[in-house]
């Protein structure tokens, strides 16, 4: 482009921009999707929103805590963003109680959310009969991933039952390889524990611990067994586990240096970035059997309350765009998560995502992630107990007592 036309073009674009500014619904969105893959995903939303006549103003801040702190302080300072990302959980419920969020009943009614929204998600976005958050994806923590090369070397196939899983771990360890890769950060130790509780303890026990927070369940022999099984996994880990991040841990599977890892479906990005193919280089399963429970979590946008008509219009447009089928598929394919709507075309997704979609179709399998059942401080207290139990020689009975203190009477 020669030097003459550039200023002209710029002027033209500025002019057009100024004009369209008056008509476009400006939406400033705070979120924490900053990596390459995540940015590619959020771009799908931004493009869809801009195409629908809006103007997406991106405010990406890495780290969930940072992004949420920024959003909260903006709300406290009287200068809220149009939308802010939170996890599908109880993180934003206090904002609802304080009357600081717009309700979305208009959009929900138009989109028939009542009909198809998965129940665990509906339960945390619909409070006192009104919708207060827009879910944008479904993630799941309790996935088991494995490196096919490592399993092949140990002469093991994908375990179809829990018993086969333990046998597989033994065989991989016997073959001189690292059987179980675990991240040393508390959130991921707790995640492994919750997955073990769900898939080895069963859905009922999981619910009585996290949902009902029943003292008797926590002190039961069945739960003690779960704790013992969780601790048993420790023997299959490697020396580099303490303090290692989850990405460095998944990297072990990607480079065929460890067998299994329990981690959320965001780990898929690590494999894909290294050009590994699901079903060929690595495998994935969530629990065992056709009725295995499927842990549900994810992300939502909340919309801080405003009396400004333009802001309200922008928020409604945003909510309807991000929940539309096309945007859902585009976003979640890049994100490695699953669309919130069941009525989407699953064939373009990889086999792990397809398995997730299939599992979600059965309401009996949908299980809320612990953060959707307990408030953040209780969830944190549980994590403190679990990490200490995992890293020291604390007895299961001791852990049970401490979990009672953490979970009950709060």
């Amino acid at each position, binding site marked *: 482009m020669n030097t003459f036309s550039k200023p002209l073009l710029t002027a033209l674009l500025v002019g057009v921009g100024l004009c369209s500014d008056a008509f476009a619904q400006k939406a400033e969105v705070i979120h924490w999707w900053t990596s390459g893959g995540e940015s590619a995903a959020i771009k799908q939303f931004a493009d869809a929103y801009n195409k629908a006549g809006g103007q997406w103003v991106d405010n990406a801040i890495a780290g969930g805590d940072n992004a949420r702190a920024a959003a909260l302080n903006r709300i406290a300072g009287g200068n809220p963003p149009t939308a802010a990302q939170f996890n599908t959980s109880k*993180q934003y419920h206090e904002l609802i109680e304080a009357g600081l969020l717009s309700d979305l009943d208009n959009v929900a009614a138009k989109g028939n959310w009542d009909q198809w929204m998965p129940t665990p998600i509906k339960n945390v976005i619909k409070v006192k009969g009104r919708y207060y958050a827009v879910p944008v994806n479904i993630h799941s923590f309790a996935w088991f991933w494995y490196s096919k090369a490592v399993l092949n070397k140990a002469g093991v196939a994908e375990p179809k039952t829990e018993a086969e899983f333990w046998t597989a771990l033994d065989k991989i360890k016997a073959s001189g390889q690292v059987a179980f890769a675990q991240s*040393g*950060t508390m959130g991921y130790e707790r995640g492994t524990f919750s997955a073990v509780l769900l898939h080895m303890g069963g859905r009922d026990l999981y619910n009585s611990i996290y949902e009902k927070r029943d003292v008797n369940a926590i002190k039961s022999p069945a739960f003690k067994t779960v704790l013992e099984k969780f601790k048993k996994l420790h023997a299959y880990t490697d020396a580099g*586990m303490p303090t290692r991040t989850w990405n*460095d841990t998944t990297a072990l599977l990607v480079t065929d240096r460890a067998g299994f890892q329990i981690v959320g479906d965001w780990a898929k990005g690590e494999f894909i970035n290294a050009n590994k193919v699901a079903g060929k280089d690595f495998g994935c399963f969530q629990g065992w059997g056709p009725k295995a429970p499927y842990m549900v979590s994810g992300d939502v946008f909340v919309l801080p309350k405003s009396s400004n008509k333009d802001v309200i219009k922008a928020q409604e447009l945003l909510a309807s765009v991000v929940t539309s089928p096309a945007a859902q598929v585009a976003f979640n394919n890049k994100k490695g998560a699953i669309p919130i709507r069941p009525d989407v075309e699953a064939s373009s997704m990889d086999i792990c995502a397809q398995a997730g979609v299939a599992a979600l179709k059965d309401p009996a399998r949908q299980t809320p992630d612990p953060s959707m059942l307990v408030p953040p401080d209780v969830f944190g207290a549980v994590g403190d107990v679990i990490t*200490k139990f995992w890293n020291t020689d604390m007895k299961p009975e001791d852990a049970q007592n401490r979990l009672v203190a953490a979970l009950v009477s709060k």
Partner: protein
Amino acid sequence: MKLPTRRPAWSAHAALIPMGTTVLVAYIAGILWTVRISFTSSKMLPKSDWVGLKQYEVLFASDRWATDMVNVALFGVTFITGAMVLGFLLAVFIDQKVRFEGVFRTLYLFSYSLSFVATGVIWQWMFNPTLGIQQSLRSWGWENARFDWITSQDMAIYCVVIAVLWHSAGLVMAILLAGLRGVDEEIAKAAQIEGIPRWRYYLSIVLPQMGASLGTCLVLLAVAVIKVFDAVVAMTNGGPGDATDVPTKFIMDNLFERQNIGLASAASTTMLITVLIIIAPLMYARSRSEKNA
């Protein structure tokens, strides 16, 4: 040493107005607000109810908080001693009219220019037994080399000490060097003529004269100890278990992720009172000696 003036120095009062305003509007208000919140049941947003000492009860019943206090004490003693000794030695040795003084000085300060996050990440790699020093020693032939402190419940905290020491010793050196250079060179020459050995000269003559810079360093290091957070998070995230957990991390976790600002405020207030108990006698003694001088 302070010269009392006979009449009030209005310019001095006026010049201190920004400090007074800051203290009143930011610090006193902030401290009072924190203390007030510690008596409420505030979760994510501040509430103005009253629950008495309930947050403090939860705090002191917390096994994690008890471990945190022990950890920060261990960290503090080791780190402050190490940083003062290393910083002093570096300053003294650099002061020996060495060649390339500028290069050495910049080298030792380089690590200070990095954020604590970067420091934590790099030392996490170095200490990781399968990635870092242990792994390298083994791959170079030393089959049974062991350096897995970071995986140990007892030793992990010292890994954090080493990392933060690496980061901050350069600053201690810089401050002590500035103080060192304020000591009259004539005395050095006189000491040399007298035949006093160099090390004796530094220990018995120079050190006592460096009270100001030593005091500054001690306070800076103490502040760094109480506030140590980013390095811990980046390096070990408080782990393994709670072996490297520190009070500031407890406060941050409850302030943000756990949405429990009532508990976080109780923890902050407790830390503040602890600091007050430790430094108040020192400051009182200092102001007494200043009055008498």
